[in-house]
């Protein structure tokens, strides 16, 4: 299959979701458990995809570099944030290229961001807590035209749930359970 993805399957899924929107409803979750210091263990929860429950048996570590009080044993939350955006963009780019019939030979997305710790530490009331935006560049080659690759970049961001969640600023709500 071109790019290792079934366009027939994508097409069938799109028609199914159009006819039965419930099948397009996905629900995810992870738990982040404190281990020690800044180190945490993340575990995926079962997800719901349409009318079925799907087991997700994955786990990974999060840590901070020593300079931020950690042991530098794993990527830090900001790096996971960038990877979550980049990998989501990559899926969208790959899907778009496959729909156009473009065979990719290389696809790599580099993402960068900056953070002013003055916001987190509250040492500077003018400093934002959030990251100062995200910049990314897509390095791509294949049998598409430069114009197609350019347009795919726009389409990928416009259809990427993670990129659009950040770009549009989805609400974040939390509760605390004392146990």
């Amino acid at each position, binding site marked *: *299959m071109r790019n290792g993805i079934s366009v*027939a399957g994508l*097409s069938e899924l799109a028609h199914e979701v159009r006819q039965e929107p419930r099948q397009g409803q996905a629900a995810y979750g992870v738990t982040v458990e404190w281990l020690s210091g800044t180190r945490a263990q993340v575990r995926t929860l079962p997800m719901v995809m349409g009318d079925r429950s799907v087991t997700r048996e994955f786990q990974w570590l999060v840590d901070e570099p020593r300079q931020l009080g950690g042991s530098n044993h794993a990527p830090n939350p900001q790096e996971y944030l960038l990877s979550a955006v980049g990998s989501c963009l990559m899926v969208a780019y790959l899907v778009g290229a496959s729909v156009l019939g473009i065979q990719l030979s290389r696809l790599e997305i580099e993402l960068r961001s900056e953070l002013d710790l003055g916001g987190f530490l509250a040492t500077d009331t003018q400093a934002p807590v959030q990251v100062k935006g995200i910049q990314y560049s897509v390095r791509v080659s294949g049998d598409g035209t430069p114009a197609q690759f350019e347009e795919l970049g726009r389409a990928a961001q416009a259809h990427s749930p993670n990129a659009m969640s950040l770009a549009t600023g989805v609400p974040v709500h939390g509760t605390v359970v004392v146990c």
Partner: protein
Amino acid sequence: MGVRGDSLASQPGVGSAAWVDGLARQRRPGPFQRTARSRPHDSWRAATLAVHAGTHDDGATGAVGTPIYQTSTFLLGGDQYAAVEEGYARDRFIYTRYGNPSQWAVQEKLAALEGAESAIVFSSGMAAISATVLSMLDRGAHVIASNELYGGTYNLFHHELPSLGMCVTFVDPRDHEQIEQSIRPSTMLIYVETLTNPLLKVVDIPTIGDIATRNRLRLVVDATFTTPLAMHVLEHGAHVVVHSCTKYLNGHSDVVAGVAMGTRKHIDQIWPRLLAFGGCLDPHACFLLERSLKTLPLRMRAHAEGAQAVAEFLAAHPKVGVVLYPGLASHPDHELASKLLSTSGGMVTFAVESDATAAHLLDRLMLMRQATSLGGVETLVSLPCNTSHATYTADQRSRLGIPPGCVRLSVGIEDPNDLIADLDQALAAL
């Protein structure tokens, strides 16, 4: 030359759409050959479907009936290459492990009989079961399965799934509360059989289908003992139904085969596992199975008539203890069977004094064949204590409800009077 495959299978439209929403391909029942001769009419009943659905005549010679396409491979062209590249290879003839007209013919007949959108035949019932189950599970998945499963399925669940990082809880398939209580966050699948072996308990598929739906679980049902003629389990919440075609569907004890059936969506998920695990059905075996299916309704009627007569004879015999047959009013599940099953089938279980007595009985039978398997035209007789449940102790069998002296009969299509005479002389000699 037209399309070498399913002519109605639409292409997704790669290159003509800007995004996914502009793609054209939708799922449709199949893949089928769509010849005017082979497509079942909506009004056809089971006996007509059994003869005509899927079967097509040879266009080149006019020979009546599906030819045997004894080939491993097919001519390739642009259409086939596009099908592979764009992900609809199941709709084209490319290689016999992927699909073959002999497979498609019998698959269409089976799907028509089962009321399913799609079917895949396999080289055994276990090939169908393993590909189906593994298409529905991910690493870490939990399965809830009947504690009275066919031994091959039990071995898959008990010995193989844990090696793949999956686990199984075995439950009484009649205890719906126990099924609900066994559901975990990681549960993905419920797996049951329509009738248990050898006690022939009737499993309430509609209730289990409801449990599966409410909990977003998949339900796979093995309906080998009941066949598509007794009940369409897909109408009662099952996502996929599997059969060992070796049994009633082929019915002549001369083919080993299996089938998985359901919506196109679910069967398309099984197809890559057929490719990966390799259990495709040989075209010649497809021919034998397709030919046998034409008489399935006739045979099932004869099986059921014979089983009813034999069960009634045994129930009245002084040397016979319990007799289990869903068609007998004395069967604990007779009422449920009457509600769910349009035929009681050909399996009869009964008990004589002891396992030793049962062994003597089998040695004295002249007509009935002492062999494992079931569903053939010839009556087969076996003892759970030395076949399906040989690895259990007598105490364990007793706890499962299998009485000492338990005998399992697969009643064939012989004259019931001859079967009764055979049993009568063998019982008299005890």
